[in-house]
């Protein structure tokens, strides 16, 4: 439009200037040319020049120039800036775009089956990806709630008992003071108990809740958010800070401040503050109250005893570094604290600070090196999520390209009428975006429906991050990418058709047009097969460990914590009362739950012990009746018995301990531990107390009724469980009135050991089913397309005498081939990764060949079922109908 540049008069102007004719100020002219919209410039500048000439004639140069400048400035108004003469987008673009959408809608409605497969498949893929994304986000933001996230650490130590370094998070008490006083890198240090489960009683209300005993500095370290009360309240001995939820449970709507709570029916403490519950995705989610460390010391003898004891590792220490301090450097400084002191223990502890950013995702150590942990699953599921989304995209691409011939005519006509390729590309993209948009909305509703189940399976409290702009940005960003990826192939492929060929009818998709489609199907099924094999391996591993002989009888066995002094005082009466009810087979007590191993010692010796290594033996303090209660299996010798008074110095070993000690005739051998000599009276079969995937640690059992804290009750096998439970409860209520009757079934406790594996297994199963479903949806669509495309061929074949079975084989053959290729590719991949996973377990189910055969057969079966539906439908069609058209 800018004629000015080409104008023949331009030279004239120069000559005019050359003749010293006054001209408008150059800069004003340039300004005008700069800001004025090009399409307006000619008329505007022309008018201004005309005006200038006139002013020059009438008023002289000075005025004319001044007026000119004034006028130029006068044009600084919006209409002159607008670059586009079009007052609104041109009508034809609006019409065209609305036409694109109209066609897209019509196509969706015309092929409802395909549209369903497209939208639903994509939505399922997006929903899975979204769920995984939310899960990953939750895992990655674990503990980020704390404002000192970057500077908080947990003290750990590596100790060497035998060959490998083991890792523990329990510390000796004096270490805290040492760190606080001698190492300036620490801003704050706090001792903490493990998370205890205690009875909190206020008036008639008695609840068993979990919480920690901590030092006052802990409150600021973990940035506790106070709702009411004094955050420094823990400086007082008889004080307690309680969480909001606990306050509500205990006091309802009453003001909790200054209320008195009785802990374990022993110490009375005053509520000095209420804090906001720690969020669910933090390590302290179960800390519902914070009690002062001084109270811990005052109320427990063993804590007082351990106060200056460097070798009693039973306490947690949390630390906050100064800004700028580096965890690795600090860890190097404190590593040898214990070894450098007098009389270092044989296990040579190395202390280090484990940063909060690694607590949750990097919690595994092997021989003194961090080996990751949950982060592997974050990666794994992230990759699975990406793959599932990819599968869904592949469906979309495949179906669109498969149907390209149907739309080839449309492309031809559009091109003949004047569409350029860019517009066709636009059209197909707008179609794919439309589908993606539907899928996105649908996927959000699927996620909303699935979240409760998902949260239960994954043990999370994840919600859609409605208010998080990042969530929407990624969600929409991903949709955009999905739309681009999924739409790109049809967009570029379809738009490249030549109008003449298509309309003349000579257009045939080439022989190799279906190759990319086949490759994509193979890719899809490779992913599905890999996932199926992986899931089977995970489940087999869990099942294998579950079937492992536990070494005792978990059936009808319950555990009750000895949580009040009354239980200790009245234990004998309680026991005889329980036995009188007839609801109980036997009652035993022990130190620590049967499903955990509470402690071990290296201070142990026996005849013929080698001097190398300091093996750790697990110590179990039990009562005489313990063995009978849990039903352990004695291999040699006898059980503890009250008829032998010498049994206070008797010891029972497990098989692993026997193997370690190497006794040929174990009975009557003498084992010395902690300065006392014990006579071995029996050997039992290994009992799994710890990790069911690991070998059983060498352990011994001795009678010691002083340190016990758990009552084990074997319910009578002849009475229904609910009936015997109510009888047991009555007795407990009678003798322990200050405590609610809280018990746990041992088989449930044992089952929790598989929590992580089962969770992974369930998630993997969930993803696998979805991946397979999405793949099958795609296959279903493709098969129906192929059947439709070959309708005539099938009709002719039928007329010539082909049987239904023959036609079915004809149509299914191609797909079965593809799935077989996918099997060949997927199996080694699955083997490689699953082998790595299984290797982490000491006690593992081998990956045997039948898993691959089974997974392969399963995949083939699904394929055949999917394809056969279409194939048989096509084969059964009346040839008259299919051949009549045209």
């Amino acid at each position, binding site marked *: 439009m800018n*004629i*000015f540049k080409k*104008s*023949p*008069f*331009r030279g*004239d*102007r120069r000559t005019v200037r050359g003749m010293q004719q006054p001209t408008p100020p150059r800069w004003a002219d340039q300004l005008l040319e700069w800001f004025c919209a090009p399409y*307006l410039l*000619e*008329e*505007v*500048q*022309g*008018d*201004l*020049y*005309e*005006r200038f*000439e*006139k002013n020059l004639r009438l008023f002289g140069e000075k005025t004319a120039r001044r007026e000119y400048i*004034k*006028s130029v400035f*006068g*044009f600084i*108004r919006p*209409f*002159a800036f607008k670059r586009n003469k079009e*007052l609104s987008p041109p009508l034809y673009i609006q019409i065209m775009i609305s036409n694109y959408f109209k066609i897209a809608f019509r196509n969706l409605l015309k092929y409802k089956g395909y549209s369903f497969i497209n939208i639903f498949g994509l939505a399922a893929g997006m929903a899975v990806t979204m769920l995984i994304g939310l899960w990953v986000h939750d895992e990655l933001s674990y503990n980020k709630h704390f404002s000192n996230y970057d500077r908080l650490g947990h003290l750990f130590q590596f100790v060497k008992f035998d060959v490998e370094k083991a890792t523990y998070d329990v510390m000796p008490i004096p270490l805290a003071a040492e760190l606080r006083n001698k190492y300036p890198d620490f801003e704050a240090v706090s001792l903490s108990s493990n998370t205890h489960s205690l009875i909190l009683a206020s008036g008639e209300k008695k609840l068993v809740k979990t919480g920690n005993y901590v030092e006052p500095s802990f409150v600021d370290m973990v940035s506790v958010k106070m709702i009411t009360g004094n955050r420094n309240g823990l400086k007082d001995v008889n004080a307690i800070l309680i969480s909001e939820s606990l306050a509500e449970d205990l006091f309802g709507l009453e003001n909790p401040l200054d209320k008195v709570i009785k802990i374990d029916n022993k110490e009375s403490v005053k509520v000095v503050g209420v804090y906001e519950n720690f969020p669910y995705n933090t390590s302290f989610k179960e800390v519902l109250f914070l009690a002062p460390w001084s109270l811990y010391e005052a109320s427990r003898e063993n804590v007082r005893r351990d106060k200056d004891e460097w070798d009693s590792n039973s306490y947690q220490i949390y630390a906050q570094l100064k800004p700028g301090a580096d965890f690795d450097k600090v860890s190097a400084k404190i590593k040898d604290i214990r070894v450098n002191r007098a009389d270092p223990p044989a296990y040579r502890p190395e202390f280090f600070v484990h940063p909060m950013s690694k607590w949750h995702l990097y919690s595994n150590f092997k021989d003194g090196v961090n080996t990751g942990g949950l982060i592997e699953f974050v990666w794994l599921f992230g990759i699975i999520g990406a793959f599932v989304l990819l599968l869904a995209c592949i469906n979309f691409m495949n179906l669109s390209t498969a149907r390209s011939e149907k739309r080839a005519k449309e492309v031809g006509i559009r091109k003949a009428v004047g569409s350029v390729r860019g517009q066709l590309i636009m059209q197909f993209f707008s179609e794919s975006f439309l589908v993606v948009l539907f899928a996105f909305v649908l996927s959000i509703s699927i996620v909303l429906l699935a979240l409760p189940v998902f949260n239960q399976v994954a043990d999370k409290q994840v919600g859609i991050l409605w208010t998080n702009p990042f969530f929407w940005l990624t969600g929409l960003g991903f949709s955009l990418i999905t739309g681009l990826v999924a739409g790109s192939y049809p967009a570029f492929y379809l738009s490249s058709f030549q109008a003449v060929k298509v309309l003349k009818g000579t257009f045939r998709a080439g022989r190799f047009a279906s190759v990319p489609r086949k490759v994509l199907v193979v890719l899809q099924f490779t992913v599905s097969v890999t996932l199926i094999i992986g899931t089977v391996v995970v489940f087999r591993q869990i099942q294998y460990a579950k079937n492992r002989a536990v070494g005792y009888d978990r059936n009808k066995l319950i555990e009750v914590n000895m949580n009040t002094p009354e239980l200790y005082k009245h234990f004998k009466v309680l026991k005889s009362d329980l036995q009188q009810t007839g609801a109980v087979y036997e009652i035993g007590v022990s130190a620590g739950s049967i499903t955990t191993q509470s402690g071990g010692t290296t201070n142990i010796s026996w005849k013929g012990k080698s001097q190398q290594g300091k093996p750790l033996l697990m110590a179990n303090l039990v009562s005489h009746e313990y063995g009978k209660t849990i039903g352990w299996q004695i291999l040699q010798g006898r059980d503890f018995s009250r008829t032998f008074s010498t049994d206070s110095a008797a010891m029972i070993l497990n098989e692993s301990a026997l193997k370690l000690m190497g006794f040929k005739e174990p009975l009557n051998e003498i084992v010395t531990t902690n300065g006392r000599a014990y006579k071995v009276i029996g050997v039992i079969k290994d009992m799994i107390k710890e990790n069911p995937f690991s070998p059983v640690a060498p352990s011994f059992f001795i009678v010691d009724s002083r340190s016990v804290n758990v009552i084990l009750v074997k319910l009578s096998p002849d009475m229904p469980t609910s009936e015997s439970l109510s009888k047991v409860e009555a007795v407990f209520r009678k003798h322990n009135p200050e405590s609610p009757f809280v018990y746990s079934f041992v088989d449930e406790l044992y089952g929790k050991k598989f929590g992580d594996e089962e969770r992974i297994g369930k998630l993997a199963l969930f993803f696998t089913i979805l991946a397979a479903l999405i793949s099958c949806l795609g296959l279903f669509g493709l098969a129906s397309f192929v059947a439709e495309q070959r309708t005539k061929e099938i009709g002719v074949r039928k007329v010539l005498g082909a049987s239904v079975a023959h036609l079915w084989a004809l149509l299914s053959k191609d797909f079965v081939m593809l799935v077989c290729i996918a099997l060949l590719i997927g199996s080694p991949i699955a083997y490689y990764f699953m082998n790595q996973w299984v290797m982490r377990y000491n006690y593992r189910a081998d990956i045997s060949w039948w898993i691959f055969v089974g997974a392969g057969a399963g995949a083939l079966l699904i394929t055949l079922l999917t394809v056969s539906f279409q194939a048989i439908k096509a084969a059964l069609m009346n040839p008259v109908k299919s051949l009549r058209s045209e």
Partner: protein
Amino acid sequence: MKRTYLGEFEEIVLLTVAIMGDMAYGVSITEELEQQTGRSVSVSAVHAALHRLEEKYMVSSHMGEATAERGGRRKRIFTLTALGNRTLDEIRLLRNRMWESIPLKILSALPR
């Protein structure tokens, strides 16, 4: 009575376009306006008004011939559209009707 309303300045510009016939372009309209109203009018204001009038489909435009005094640039010639014409008509009728509705007594009593 549904129509696009015009501002006072727009109305005057539109009238001027009608007056100028096929000679209506930026400068000529400005000069005519200055003569008719006696007030000083800026070229840019006239351009803006013409622009708005075109948006409202009151006037249409085409590029006219170029002259030397314009540095070889063409003029944009504005002509009244049917809509513009009708709008002016309606405005006049409305005014007339309203003038006629003022009772004579009051009309004569109005301060001059």
